């Protein structure tokens, strides 16, 4: 079993799927000879040629819209949006078209497409290269949304997304690209979309989170272990559909829930998770449902002290968990 970085797992999943199915192809800005600005498509151009690794003009609505057309034709496009912050010019194609195609045609047409987008901060990316945009799309039935945290999950979920017959937004945390390494089997495995995973067992406080924050929560949990606080960590992995049973089970485990995300608090995914618990597992709770999330500012500033102030980290997380444990 190889040890791969998060981004290597992204590349590997695409390479394997492109080998496996000649209908899979990649399109986006700088994905060709450059191999992507983050190098996620590194080597694919050389291996599969410019017919299947297509450098598009600089136009996101066309990247997604042309991808939709190719998907309708029977191909399986993987569209790269260079930074998640630049997905909004394509919002209409994603929300009005990709998400609604199957429903509106009464199951006649469908859009088997993956839209990959690096998101998240902590990389000196400033207001427009650091955003978490996932919540904008969680009110849109017809889309699936994935935000994995480990190389293992990346490979399994990206492969599942590529084989899925509906449109999938696949959000890759760019800070994780090279920060995190992990074991990734060479086998051809997929993971189920819509299933959360317990990344740590514990019985004092339940953390529900995803993306980079999974790792910060794990670090916080290590620390708290020493103080005798046992933290249970649920990694959502899929944000649409949410794993309701997984969420409720994790709630029952401790009766104290804190939802953590890097994205702005208001209107974030945490609200939906909290509402599910408050609706379906209220009497399991021993404490208010806490949310620890990014401040409600338009986006993350560039200036290092402000970026640091915005970002959650293991210390802030440990503090919040501790408070909840002591509630």
């Amino acid at each position, binding site marked *: 079993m190889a040890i791969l970085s998060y981004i290597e797992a992204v590349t590997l999943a695409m390479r394997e799927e492109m080998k496996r199915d000649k209908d899979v192809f990649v399109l986006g800005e700088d994905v060709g000879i450059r191999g992507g600005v983050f190098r996620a498509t590194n080597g694919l151009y050389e291996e599969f040629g410019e017919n299947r690794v297509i450098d598009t003009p600089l136009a996101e609505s*066309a990247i997604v819209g042309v991808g939709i057309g190719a998907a309708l034709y029977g191909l399986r496009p993987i569209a790269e949006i260079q930074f998640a912050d630049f997905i909004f010019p394509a919002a209409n194609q994603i929300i009005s078209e990709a998400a609604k*195609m199957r429903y509106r045609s009464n199951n006649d*047409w469908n859009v088997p497409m993956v839209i990959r987008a690096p998101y998240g901060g902590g990389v000196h990316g400033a207001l427009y290269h650091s955003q978490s945009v996932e919540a904008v799309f969680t009110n849109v039935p017809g889309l699936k949304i994935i935000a994995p945290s480990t190389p293992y999950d990346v490979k399994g979920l990206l492969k599942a997304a590529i084989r899925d017959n509906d449109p999938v937004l696949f959000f890759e945390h760019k800070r994780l690209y090279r920060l995190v390494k992990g074991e990734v089997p060479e086998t051809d495995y997929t993971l189920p979309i819509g299933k959360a995973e317990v990344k740590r067992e514990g019985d004092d406080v339940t953390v529900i989170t995803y993306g980079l924050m999974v790792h910060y929560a794990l670090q916080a949990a290590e620390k708290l272990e020493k103080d005798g606080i046992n933290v249970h960590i649920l990694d959502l992995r899929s944000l649409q559909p949410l794993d309701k049973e997984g969420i409720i089970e994790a709630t029952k485990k401790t009766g104290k829930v804190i939802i953590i995300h890097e994205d702005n608090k208001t209107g974030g995914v945490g609200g939906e998770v909290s509402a599910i618990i408050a609706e379906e597992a209220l009497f399991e709770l021993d404490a208010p449902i806490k949310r620890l999330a990014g401040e409600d500012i338009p986006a993350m500033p560039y200036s290092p002290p402000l970026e640091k102030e915005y970002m959650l980290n293991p210390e802030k997380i440990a503090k919040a968990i501790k408070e909840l444990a002591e509630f």
Partner: protein
Amino acid sequence: MIPVNSHQSLGLQDKDVLNMYYYMLLARKVDERMWLLNRSGKIPFVISCQGQEAAQVGAAFALIKGEDYILPYYRDVGVVLVFGMTPRDLMLSAYAKAEDPNSGGRQMPGHFGNKKLKTVSGSSPVTTQVPHAVGIALGAKIKQERLVAFTTFGEGSSNQGDFHEGANFAGVHKLPVIFMVENNKYAISVPVKKQLPVDSVAVRGAGYGMPGVSVDGNNPFEVYAAVRAARERAINGEGPTLLEAVMYRLVPHSSDDDDRAYRTREEVEEAKKRDPIFLLERYLYDVDLLDDKKHQEILDKVMKEVNEATEYAEHAPYPDIKTIMDHVYEG
């Protein structure tokens, strides 16, 4: 106004021309029936093809059914009929009945789609189909299949960003796609001079490295010839074409609109003199392909189809409410 004996030189046989007439008339009569049904409270909404049938039918005749893909816009009754949609299908959609092949009654009429007929499902936000057509053409290029994607939209809609992005993408990759603007002079109430700073959308072709051709949308032969030429180019790997068919929207924007608020009756009456159905009729009489008897025969056939379709659709069942959650995702 259609030059006498002009169809032969374009490779159109007499029977093709009569067939065109049949489809144009069928489109018109389906449309007129829908207005009646709307005004009598039987269906909630109509959006019309009236005045655009020549362009629609002429264009569709130049395509190859079963091979080419069409991505029509909401007025394209003529296009979809030629491609195999039946009056019954259209009526089922107007009545929002379960059997509607376009959407099972989920979408308004005018939102065409049928995979079997290579008719791609359309939505309401305008111009979104343009990149889809380009994507289909890209797919055909990748798979090395010889076909074209044909898409239409209004002149107002050509001002959406998706037109620009789609046309540019197609130009760069020299894709087999045909963009046809149906310039009917209005976008709801907004006249073309408030939509466009140029006289013709076709001039924009040059900016995308493709021919831009403007034709008389009231003359089905001219449109046929232009689409045929564009198809040739596309199939031969020479890339996309931007066509503009110029005509006039003879009725209000939709059954919810009242066009008296923004255009004079004189202007509309003037345009009616160039009603494409009327022009083609005159042509057919002039070249002796039609006489009163034959004319009546065709009309009867068309009306029979329209009547049967209406009858069928009116009595067809609505979708079961238990289906409301179906097909959000696969399975």
